[in-house]
């Protein structure tokens, strides 16, 4: 019985990892005031780039770096359109998703159905992994899991406890006042959008080189959109994102748990999406002021305008 519980919880952690990476990236991005709806597309690009590089070089770490770079580059589209050209962020993000999904489908077509010979192997942390129950659960995971947790904690520390983090937050709250303090709002926002892209691409790399070891078109399956909902659920706080992501990881695992019971697999596949709606519904019942959303989220900032 204990083995089953550990196995289920272990898979929950695995399923929650890409959600956590994506959510932390989106939190950083939205805290600077830019809404990025392109997560799904960037994730997909990260997945395909990581897969192709692992397939050709056999080195998943090199693949991860390549995926991150690709994610940063493609996020520049959204950054340029929404920051420099002050375009509508909803539409620009959607366009980024279309381009990302399209490019990844095009680049990945020759690789569909080919399994990876090597993958990002799980890594057992010495000593810690020997602790009963907690050890196999938290310390025998893929490197992506450790990175996700560490990056989430680092992002929390950065945003809440450092001067640079305050600059990012105030850029999202009141860019005009921030600019008068000598902060380059445009630069801060560019960096945050690109950082968000790097995180989303990592999430994608996890899907194709660790979670499933293969590439299929549409393998991100709406995770990029769930990430955007999780950002709200986490109240734009990377620390709370850890809880939310693994909660949703549990919903993904629930699908496989309930399948033998005889419930339609298609109905079970709806669960993450229904859960997303329910969670947002729960958030909607709360007092809006306590939601803590960045005040200028989604609003373009025009320099020198009064």
């Amino acid at each position, binding site marked *: 019985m204990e083995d089953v519980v550990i196995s289920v919880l272990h898979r929950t952690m695995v399923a929650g990892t890409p959600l956590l990476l994506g959510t932390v990236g989106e939190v950083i991005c939205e805290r600077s005031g830019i809404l990025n709806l392109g997560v799904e597309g960037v994730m997909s690009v990260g997945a395909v780039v990581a897969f192709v590089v692992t397939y050709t070089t056999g080195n998943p770490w090199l693949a991860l770096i390549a995926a991150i770079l690709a994610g940063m580059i493609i996020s520049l589209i959204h950054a340029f359109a929404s920051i420099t050209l002050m375009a509508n962020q909803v*539409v620009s993000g*959607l366009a980024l998703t279309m381009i990302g999904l399209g490019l990844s489908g095009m680049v990945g077509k020759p690789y569909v159905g080919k399994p990876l010979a090597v993958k990002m192997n799980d890594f057992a942390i010495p000593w810690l992994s020997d602790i009963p129950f907690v050890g196999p659960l938290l310390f025998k995971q893929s490197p992506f899991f450790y990175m996700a947790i560490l990056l989430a904690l680092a992002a929390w520390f950065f945003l809440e406890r450092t001067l640079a983090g305050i600059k990012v937050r105030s850029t999202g709250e009141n860019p005009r006042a921030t600019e008068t303090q000598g902060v380059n709002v445009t630069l801060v926002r560019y960096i945050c959008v690109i950082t968000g892209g790097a995180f989303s691409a990592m999430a994608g790399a996890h899907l194709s080189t660790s979670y499933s070891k293969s590439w299929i078109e549409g393998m991100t399956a709406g995770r990029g959109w769930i990430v955007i909902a999780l950002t709200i659920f986490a109240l734009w706080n990377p620390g709370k994102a850890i809880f939310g992501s693994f909660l949703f990881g549990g919903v993904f695992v629930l699908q496989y748990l309930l399948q033998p019971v005889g419930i339609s697999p298609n109905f079970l596949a709806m669960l993450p999406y229904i859960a997303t709606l329910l969670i947002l519904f729960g958030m909607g019942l709360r007092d809006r002021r306590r939601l803590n959303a960045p005040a200028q989220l989604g609003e373009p900032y025009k320099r020198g305008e009064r």
Partner: protein
Amino acid sequence: MLKINVYDRDSITPLRSLMTNIGSLLASLLAIGIVFFLCGVNPLYAIAKIFTGSFGSMYGFKETITKAIPLILIGGGLALAFRAKFWNIGAEGQLLMGALMGTWIGLTWGSSIPSSILIPIMFAAGFIGGAFLGLIPAILKIKFSINEVISTLMLNYICAELITMLIVGPWKGNTRFGFPGTNNLNDAALLGVISGSRIHYVTLIIAIISILILSIIVYRTRFGYEVRVIGENPEAGKYAGIDFFKTTLVIMTLSGGLAGVAGVGELAGIHHYLGYPASISSGYGFTAIIVAWLAKLNPIYVLVSALFFAGILVGGDAIQISLGLPGATVQIVNGILLVFLIMGDYFLKHKVIVSFANNDSKIACAAKK
């Protein structure tokens, strides 16, 4: 030294708007060409093939009109929703819901009700189905402040799974040799087509009439004015006493309903049975977003931009066959077009002057100081 000066434009003439759109399209063609080139495809051949495949032959043109039908219906509805800044990204699901309702009516009464009554009932049911799915995010947004982008998208996924659940389960037809899908609808439930083509003209006529009604609503009624105020200046709307909830409900009834009608058209005019969601709609709900944007959210212009994007869909099929490109190609083309269109808006609102500031002027500046 390169110097860029940006000035606000005082007024936007329709001519400048048109020229900006054309400029954006040309720039995006250049970008698309570069992407094709990087993917090892001859860009000139591919882009030419897109347009000759869709507008260059009688067959291609008929197919283009066929694919324009759902884009007109959905694009018109989205133009209305986007005017109120209600980001309905769920047209894909609303279309599927319409097809589902149409199938239900068609399978239940296909053999007992004459076609002249059955078809209108199917369209009405499709409208109701799509509207129902559109109303959910509207209520969630106004009453519970749930972001409509996420809720509409989640409903897309839920709808697609619901249809798959039906066609592999209770609705699975006994004439499909074990493959998922319902039986073919009875002849009475099918739409006529213009001979030698797949143009289901009844839906086309409904689409054009809907556009005319929409443009009257938008430009000639108090409701259309309220929609604009909600989108452009919600604060003013509150003071003016506009009922946001009621207005949003009407907007999404129309937007979702029209997508549902498009779903019935695809079902009864093209496919004749309910199959996998991805086969019923080839991303019309998403393409229509760009259709509405290119039309500057003007329902009448939707007719033109729907035809243009239908051409890209048909041409995209053509280059997929002749160049062996994946289905995702069209998505890249659409995404790039959308990015350049929204970027073009900047140059519509601002005057950008790039000049080379030479040393002399720098010295002059320094001297002034």
